[in-house]
């Protein structure tokens, strides 16, 4: 079935376009990843809320979400260019020009000719997206160290110098920053926070990391336990960081987990055990408190005003504006650097404007700074599974499109017709997708007119249902390649 000379000849005539597209796609994907401005997109997205751009920006609040436009538009059009021209080159061009006559004047079966050419088309697309995906992976790892480890954030970068440690080493041992005053100051400045806020932030991050490590180990242990048990779902075996935050008790049951958690915090296992115990206690007391509160009703000795989820946004805005007035600054400047609200003059104005106590205002400012810093960290996280499915999805989509072009390339005898149909359909898909991506309210019918709908990047990013779309793409590709193979062995060739 497989003919080596034909495969070699296919490579020889098509490798240039393949190489160009592969390189360009790799560079653009790497550019998207390296150029990702986590803090910037977060603020743009909030500014664009409610405008026509919001749909475009909504997914940009994470590194992988930011890649949606790469996958849905840029990678799509590059893939289309490659598969349309290559499919055309492989079959109809040789039939139309007549050079297929030389191949078929040898004792080679038509079956082998078309099978080998299909194989070239499929394997070249596969190799292209393996390389492009690896390039993206490499770029992310080099820039953020977030594929194999924790992201290297600006503060880690800044603290690396006074501590004389490599950034990667430090990103796994954040407690080293806590222990060094100079490092703390540099790191806080790098994240636009003061020392107080930064140390709250750092402690939170370290605790989270310790939970993350322990969660991994507990999940591994549970997988070993339930390996034989078919009744239990993978989802139920898995213990997430969030599960542990709600119920740290589980950590105490595993020695390995305790060791791993202690290592992240740079403390002894005993100390870590103590820490977890304290966490468990404080969670319990919080729960009790809640119960008591609801029983006691609204009678309390706390200040008249309380910061709740509902009024936090408004209160913060008021604090910012009054601070800006007191400091004679633009409110945007204050918003960008919330430490300014801690200036005595600003504080006084803010207390007056909100009626809150000084402590409350400072806590609120800290919370805001810490949570926005954590949001940026989260945006820089690299979910390998999501990335894997995005890459598989893109490959399936381009493979399905290549099957359309390949099919028309074998169906028609004239290059012009084959190119018009086999290139026109994929290009129409691209245009429809562009309209969908760039416009807010597109008629729902458009979704049914393009194959790209089956590659549901939104669902992949949101860990929703996307498997059937990819399976459908695979079925389309298989069907059309098979049909092309059958047609070519039976058709009249005008040679």
């Amino acid at each position, binding site marked *: 079935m497989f*003919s*080596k*000379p*034909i495969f*070699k*000849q296919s490579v*020889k*005539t098509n490798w240039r376009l393949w190489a160009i597209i592969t390189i360009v796609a790799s560079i653009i994907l790497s550019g998207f990843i390296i150029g990702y401005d986590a803090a910037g997109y977060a603020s743009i997205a909030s500014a664009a809320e409610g405008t026509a751009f919001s749909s475009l920006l909504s997914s940009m609040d994470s590194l992988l979400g930011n890649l949606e436009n790469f996958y849905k538009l840029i990678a799509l059009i590059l893939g289309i260019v490659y598969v349309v021209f290559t499919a055309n*080159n492989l079959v109809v*061009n*040789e039939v139309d*020009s*007549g*050079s297929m*006559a*030389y*191949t*078929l*004047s*040898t*004792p*080679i*079966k*038509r079956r082998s000719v078309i099978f080998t050419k299909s194989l070239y088309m499929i394997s070249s697309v596969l190799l292209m997206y393996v390389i492009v995906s690896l390039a993206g992976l490499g770029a992310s790892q080099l820039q953020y160290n977030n594929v194999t480890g924790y992201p290297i954030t600006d503060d880690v970068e800044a603290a690396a110098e006074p501590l004389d440690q490599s950034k990667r080493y430090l990103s796994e041992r954040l407690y080293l920053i806590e222990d060094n005053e100079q490092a703390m100051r540099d790191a806080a400045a790098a994240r636009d926070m003061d020392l107080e806020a930064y140390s709250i932030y750092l402690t939170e991050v370290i605790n989270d990391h310790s939970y993350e490590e322990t969660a991994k180990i507990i999940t591994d242990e549970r997988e070993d336990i339930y390996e034989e048990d078919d009744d239990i779902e993978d989802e139920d075996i898995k213990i997430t960081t969030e599960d542990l935050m709600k119920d740290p008790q589980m950590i105490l049951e595993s020695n390995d987990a305790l060791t791993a958690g202690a290592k992240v915090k740079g403390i002894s296992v005993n100390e870590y055990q103590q820490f977890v115990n304290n966490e468990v206690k404080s969670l319990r007391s919080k729960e009790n408190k809640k119960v008591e509160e609801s029983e006691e009703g609204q009678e309390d000795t706390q200040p008249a005003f309380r910061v709740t989820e509902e009024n936090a946004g408004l209160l913060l805005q008021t604090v910012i504006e009054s601070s800006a007035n007191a400091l004679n600054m633009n409110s945007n400047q204050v918003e960008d650097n919330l430490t300014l609200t801690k200036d005595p003059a600003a504080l006084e104005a803010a207390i007056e404007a909100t009626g809150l106590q000084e402590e409350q205002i400072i806590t609120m400012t800290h919370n805001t700074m810490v949570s926005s810093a954590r949001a940026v960290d989260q945006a820089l996280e690299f979910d390998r599974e999501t990335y894997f499915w995005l890459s598989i999805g893109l490959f399936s989509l381009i493979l399905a499109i290549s099957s359309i072009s390949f099919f028309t390339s074998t169906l028609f005898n004239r290059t012009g017709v084959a190119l018009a149909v086999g290139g026109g359909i994929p290009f129409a898909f691209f245009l429809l997708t562009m309209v969908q991506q760039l416009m807010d309210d597109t008629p729902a019918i458009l979704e049914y007119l393009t194959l790209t709908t089956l590659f549901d990047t939104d669902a992949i990013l949101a860990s929703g249902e996307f498997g059937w779309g990819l399976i459908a793409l695979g079925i389309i590709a298989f069907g059309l390649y098979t049909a092309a193979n059958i047609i070519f062995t039976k058709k*009249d*060739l*005008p*040679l």
Partner: protein
Amino acid sequence: MSVIKVNHATKDYGHGRGIFDVSFEVKEGETFGFLGPNGAGKSTTIRHLMGFSKLDDGELSINGKNSWKSADNIKHDVGYLPGELAFPKGMTGDQFIEYMAKERQLTDMTQTKELKELFEIDSSKAIKEMSLGTKRKLAVVTAFMHDPKILILDEPTSGLDPVMQERFIQFVLKEKAEGKTILLSSHIFTEVDATCDRIAIIKDGVVVSTVEADELKQNTNKSFKIEFANFKDYQKFIKNTALTISVKRPKQNQVKLTVTDQKMQELFMELSEVKLKFISEIKFTLEDYFMDFYDRDKTVADGEENLQYGMH
């Protein structure tokens, strides 16, 4: 034994194009000419013989194997020279030769070397930079590199200069001497005339005549054009002759007539009694014969008749 069999082959492309009920056979060791104007159906017939297309009706076989069903199998013994010179893109001549050798699973390259020397081809250049003649030579080398027993040649000399045309004819004659079976399609009379044992003439998709080349060469009929010294002699000859005069031209005092070899003596006896200005033999060539069919107005019957009488 017939190596190539074309049996009532019909393929209708519509609008009168195609081939209709074409039949002929090429015997082992025979060189068969397939003559006809452009668009008559020569290439269509060969395309079907090579298994590129499927017939509507009829049957084609090479070495007893069906051309469509066993298309790959029969190619072991067939060397095919396509009419169109469309090579795969982006190759040098040597790369193309290597590619074809690999596809034929050929390891012995002595024949290839000999062919390259015979046709004096420089195959190191990129194909797209080659002249038409060099491309044609390259096609010849790759078509016969495996020393096939059957040669199918579609317009083999178009694009070759006269010297190379002659060399190609010598090549075909050499292959013929080695006992190869050859099907040669052409619209050039001289190469068909020089090489072929039998000739089929195809016009508008229909084989209008199949002739033995020797039949034409050793035609026992001879045609003459005779001009008399004056009108009196012209009249005298017409009056007295026992022979059939096919054309009379009183104004020029000319006649044309055809005699068999046996009646030659009789003709000259009669001519000795009149005064002549000149007498010349009208030579009958394949070209004349072909031109009869080429002319759309002439029917098949007219052509047959001319062959018989050698009259033109």
